[in-house]
């Protein structure tokens, strides 16, 4: 793993998200109400809605287009909907958000 500094925790509002552009497409960084950070794909598998614009509740996000709900931990769609979004390793250290560069470059290398 090679951890790279993406930005400060405070760059993301609580119960909010910011997007980063990567080789594997847009990745959404979520900060939940309890100050944990999750990195998942920004794209809803249903109709491509930007998940970073959804309402964050608990460790879940609701897609702004058609209200699909995803677990930020597993990436699995909740309830009756089925589908999942990729999740990426992320960690917060001393108020900085670190992402693993190797997993984000994987697909382009293949």
């Amino acid at each position: 793993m090679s951890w790279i500094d993406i930005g400060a925790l405070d760059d993301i509002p609580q119960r909010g998200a910011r997007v980063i552009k990567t080789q594997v497409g847009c990745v959404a960084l979520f900060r939940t109400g309890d100050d944990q950070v999750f990195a998942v794909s920004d794209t809803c598998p249903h109709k491509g809605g930007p998940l970073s614009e959804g309402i964050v509740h608990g460790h879940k996000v609701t897609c702004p287009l058609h209200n699909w709900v995803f677990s930020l931990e597993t990436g699995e769609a909740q309830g009756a909907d089925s589908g999942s979004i990729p999740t990426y390793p992320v960690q917060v250290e001393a108020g900085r958000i670190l992402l693993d560069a190797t997993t984000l470059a994987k697909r382009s290398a293949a």
Partner: protein
Amino acid sequence: MQKLVVIGAGMASGRVLEHLFETAPDAYDVTLFNAEPRGNYNRLMLSPVLSGEKSYAEIVTHDDDWYSANGVTCRFGEAVVKIDRDRKVVVGQNGEVPYDKLVIGTGSAPFIIPLPGKDLPEVITYRDLDDTNAMIEAAARPGSRAVVIGGGLLGLEAAAGLRMRGMEVTVLHLMGHLMERQLDEAAGYLLKKDLEDRGITVLTRASTKAILGDGKVEAVLLEDETVLEADLVVMAVGIRPETRLAKDAALAVGRGVEVNAQMQTSDPDVLALGECVEFNGQLFGLVAPLYDQAKVVASTLLAEPAAFVTKELSTKLKVTGCDLFSAGDFAEAEDREDIVFRDPARGVYKRLVLKEDRLIGAVMYGDTADGSWFFGLIKDGTDVSEMRDTLIFGPAYQGGAAVDPLSAVAALPADAEICGCNGVCKGQIVTAIEGGATDLGMIRATTKASASCGTCTGLVEQVLAVTLGDDFVLPAAQSVCGCTDLTHEDVRRLIKSQALKSQPAVWQELGWSTPNGCHVCRPAINFYLLADWPLEYQDDPQSRFVNERNHANIQKDGTYSVMPRMFGGITTAAELRAIADAADKYNVPTVKVTGGQRIDLLGVKKEDLPGIWYDLNAAGMVSGHAYSKGLRTVKTCVGTDHCRFGTQDSTGLGIKLEKLLWGSWTPHKVKLAVSGCPRNCAEATCKDVGIICVDSGYQVGVGGAAGMDLKETERLCDVPTEEEALEVTAAFVQIYRENAKYLDRPYKWLAKVGLDWVKAQVVDDLENRRALAARFELSQTVYRKDPWAPLAAKAESFAPLADLTLEAAE
């Protein structure tokens, strides 16, 4: 005898000496340095000293007799200048002392925010007895005011102590709730409420900009330009390990002085413990691990094997009357389960966090009697699957009933208002029930409760159920969402009657079953709070749907549409030119004339939004709120200005209406139109409010729709003057804002409450009409503002946080 030098007479080093003298009184000749001009005392007890519940003498742990009995050379009031490891001497201000072993216990230093005014004499921290005495002295001056920056453990203890000594105290906290590291939102809300009950003002999300004063502290200025008068400022925003001596002596220092499990630094003859050390990447601020470290230091000094291990910690706040407890890890996670218990009447909140049948975290407020039992379960990793159903009730629990969904209503006091229209309290309804009124119809007949607009029907039924028990069958009602059993109407009523002014207040007092709601209830509660408490409640962007958060309409490809306001559908050549320039500059693919008489720019990228807003703002245009559950547009015809049939200035009235109403948030979107004559070219009869001008004045219709349902407006009233038309419209919009369910258009809400009730409130009761219009205007002082301008200044928050595609290409 070997020589031992100890730097710092804190709680940890005091314990080291105790253990040392107990086990081997003759092993070392000890010299103790302390920068403070006194020996060891119990710093944890400074809060009772500040509040006046204890004196300094009572908290001294080691006195002069003890030091002399154990042969300790005391160098109090003398700072250590440096440690010379080559010569093995410690250099004090008054001379050198050689050592064979050295213990560093320099503790921590308070963090000072680099604000303008931080060096004024009345700006103090809260670490030692001198700070405490300075606060006691300041509080002695009658009528003096204190501002405490920082709502963590120390800040709140300082605030409570100063308040007990009679000061006016305001606590400023940067985060959304108090003690965010130890408490979750719900417990933080209850703590805030308790502190406010004892007269302390608590401002959360409060960022300090400067401390004002010429030679002495006069006031504190916040980022939002609020000015708080102050005679004393206590800065309690955090601490950092005091490592300067260790660093100068070239010992390994990270965030703190690095030590191994034997508490040795990178030099085996130099040990360190307490708040100044870092062990396995961890720092220490609470006293329990410090005492464990002290034991290890004593053993290492006596060459006995010992190792320090970190343990689970629990926190309690030492403010008399605020019962809170937190322990372990209470963050949410996929493999964890919450057990939540709320008792709104007693102000009790308990949350247990379970993982794989083991308790890993607990937060409690109001009733912490079982805290040590839960803490024991966490430390021991006990399997709790057997007692899971009753776990939250504590060790004394002996069987019992399930949690009652009616508990929120049962907990209401007798004087809680249930029916706002007729001013009926819970107590009156209970009296009526006890007098023989056993169903809704009889309650309406005897008390008038729920006999007017009917929105409190659900609550009246719950009072019936609570009072009659099994004799009353509660009709099934649609709750807001899975987080609560209450309906929208119930929640609205309770927000008003219980004066709930924050989302955590609603979650706690109304017994929400989730920690922070869901995508269904959050936007609704956010609207109810801002509609009912425009001055007190601050809108929460994270509880809004994307369009309202980004102030633009998201399209199916993730781009946005941008629509500037054109008051009354009137524009100018200059505005059109600016719109055309913006369309060119940002490569807008589609420019559309809308049904609401304005121009829509479709296909704008998110990162371009701040730029296009800035350009449109510069041309004098503001957001058209084409995305909001709020006022959209006022459509007009040209009226008497140009039309040969026009009876009144319909365009002028439309502009005045839009200037009056714009920026307001409503339960659903609100569209208006004004036609200059009954030919109705502005199609006013299918709007939420539609005005038709006639020779004798203005016909005001309400409750029209031309969407999924097609509905013609119904006549609210006819008024002779433009002023009255404006006032009636504002009053109607306000009564809709105050009463309707979130996402009910006016026609849906009118079908529930009846046009007659609205007429009685808005048309017939002139005094009430004016009061409604005045409340609308009060709210508009906050919300009649362009949301684009402040966001255009924060362009960076609309751009991606990082672009890794560029880095990877290098």
